[in-house]
């Protein structure tokens, strides 16, 4: 072997030297980062953890860390806001973020992106699984390749595959919506729900939370109808107008997501029904926020996608740099309730979703 003509040793040499050399640079770089962070003190907010702890066991430089992040869809303001949070955190840590995903919420649409990312061999995967069971096989490939996996927003059935899962609590969000809507209508009367389509876990949890809370606490409130708009604003608008007609005593509508929220707000606006029929919607996409400020929607249950994104990237970094102890296996972030009266205050409006990264 030693005398082979075409330079096997030549090929091998840099390989051998590489890691050692890189390790030295990494140690220096990381030490300086850690030192810098320590020097800055506790300026970093919320769950910032790893950057201020010791760098003894680390063997990876931030620049060589790549976190692959697969959102549910790339076009929803919720995920664009999540991307903004994730990107900001990645910039802060000096690591690379690979943001890849489909434009449509489905496992068949998402799987190719996950498969393709495996070929890049990222340091960690953060994913918003579009299906609790169908996405397990693609995720299993990463686990087999010893790549840590974190789920954000939604999750998969077999949580043993995961290093962490970060989510907002959809059930309690539905309960918050129920409490707010009940107080708006004086704890009595007919309400309706506009859902997206049957079988989406997060949406169903919101609906269940809403229905359970109403049943448990407000016996005089009855949910008279649930409609499905198939994520079409136009359909949600027509359904809302028609529901008000079908149930003349209707006092409130719970819109389960952004398109339904925008449709409900628009219909209440054109029916001039503000003050008579109250709309409470989930999420805070730009148009929903506008409708809230104008009073056509009375309240929004706002999730914290930016915090989900930044926490996921933070955890991915911690896992890769050997700070497993910093990572909680299950993080549930609280939802924020915004009403028309406080919609303009900065302490609330900072939670509104962004529609493009340039704006953040």
């Amino acid at each position, binding site marked *: 072997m030693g005398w082979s003509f075409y330079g096997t040793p030549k090929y091998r040499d840099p390989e051998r030297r590489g890691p050692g050399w890189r390790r030295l640079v990494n140690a220096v770089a990381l030490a300086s980062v850690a030192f810098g962070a320590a020097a800055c003190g506790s300026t970093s907010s919320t769950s910032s953890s790893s950057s201020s702890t010791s760098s003894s066991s680390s063997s990876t430089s931030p620049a060589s860390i790549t976190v692959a992040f697969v959102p549910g869809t*790339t*076009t*929803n*303001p919720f995920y*664009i806001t999540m991307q903004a949070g994730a990107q900001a955190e990645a910039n802060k840590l000096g690591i690379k973020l690979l943001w890849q995903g489909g*434009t449509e919420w489905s496992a068949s649409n998402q799987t190719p992106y996950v498969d393709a990312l495996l070929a890049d061999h990222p340091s960690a995967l953060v994913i918003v699984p579009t299906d609790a069971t169908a996405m397990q096989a693609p995720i299993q490939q990463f686990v087999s390749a010893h790549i840590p996996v974190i789920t954000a927003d939604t999750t998969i059935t077999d949580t043993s595959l995961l290093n962490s899962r970060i989510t907002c609590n959809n059930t309690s969000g539905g309960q918050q919506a129920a409490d707010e809507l009940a107080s708006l209508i004086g704890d009595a009367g007919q309400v309706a729900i506009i859902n997206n389509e*049957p079988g989406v876990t997060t949406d169903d949890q919101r609906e269940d939370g809403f229905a359970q809370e109403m049943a448990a606490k407000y016996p005089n409130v009855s949910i008279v*109808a*649930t*409609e*499905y708009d*198939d*994520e*079409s*604003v*136009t*359909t949600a*608008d*027509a*359904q809302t*107008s*028609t*529901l*008000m*007609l*079908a149930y*003349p005593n209707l006092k409130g509508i719970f819109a389960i997501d952004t*398109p339904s929220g*925008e449709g409900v707000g*628009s*219909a209440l*606006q*054109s*029916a001039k029904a503000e003050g008579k029929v109250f709309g409470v919607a989930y999420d805070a*996409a*730009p*148009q929903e926020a*506008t409708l809230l400020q104008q009073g056509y929607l009375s309240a929004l249950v706002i999730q914290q996608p930016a915090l989900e994104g930044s926490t996921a990237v933070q955890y991915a970094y911690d896992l890769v740099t050997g700070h497993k102890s910093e990572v909680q296996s299950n993080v549930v972030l609280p939802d924020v309730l915004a009403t028309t009266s406080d919609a303009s205050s900065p302490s609330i409006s900072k939670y509104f979703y*962004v*529609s*493009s*990264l*340039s704006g953040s």
Partner: protein
Amino acid sequence: MSDAPEGSAMALPGSSSAEAASETTAEMTSRASKRRLVRVVERAGGLWTLAVLAGLILIFGFVAPGFYSQANWLATSEYAVEFMLLALGETFVIITGGIDLSVGAMLGLSSMAAAVVMAHFMGNGAGSVPLAIAGGVTAVLVGGLVGVLNGFLITKLRVTPFVVTLGTLGMATGATYLLNNGGEVVNLPPQIADLGNSVIAGWLSVPVVITAALCVVCWLALSRTRFGLRTYAIGSNPLAARRAGINVDRHLINVYLISGLLAGVAGLMVMARFASASPVYGATDNLTAIAAVVIGGASLFGGRGTVLGTIVGTFIVSILVTGLILAHVEPFWQEVAVGMILIAAVAADQVRVRLLAR
């Protein structure tokens, strides 16, 4: 219903009269009565689907209180606007024997393009009314451009309409996302919201009036002009149309242009209604638009279809959405009911076709 398919009306009487000369008198009278039946059915034209629509209106009026109300008319007619405009363009395309799968994507792209243009100049303190007009022009132009691209690729590259418009569906959808990185555009000039939400005399919203005017224009174009006649001719037999001296390529490009322009208007109307542009606008509209045209009696093989039929088809589709809610039908049963009524409407039309073919 006087714009019943002219292609079939021309063919029938001529072919049977020559044979009839050599028949016995008994056979002749039976032929004559049959011909009378044919003529009645023919004159009825789209009446079969109109009967389905009338039936629905009667039944809903009976079981759903509030169905005959001003509020329900507003909800139903405003809901119909988007599909009506897309289905109108689709009618021309389907009569030529083509299909346009990109109408929904063109709607999304044109509304997003218009919104991006308006949002961009809003910040520079430009006047609101000219800006709203600029947005409207942008929407229609963008729709028209994609339409011309469709027509050009179909006629010059000789790729089937299905493939071309499937391709431009993807391209237009991607372009919609690219325009604002997949985000929504809000904060449009208030004049745009006025356009989408003003109601004349309590019954007619402005988008509905605009759509109705475009329906009349399309009806005249298809049933009263040489352009319409050529559209049917190309759909019945493209080769014969070419031999007859019709510039088929140019005509097809114009037809896809019309589809694009109308999708652009639809994009403008949806954007005006919600005072925002979202990349999900129009995403699920393709099949609804095509279904409305087919329910209206058009043949996917070309040569057959009318604007009045499409109007009836669109109203059947829209009335089902609002009427079933008013009738307190469970949402899952709504889906079943919609499917059943779609098939029933087309089946009723097939009966007519069979009677005509006798």
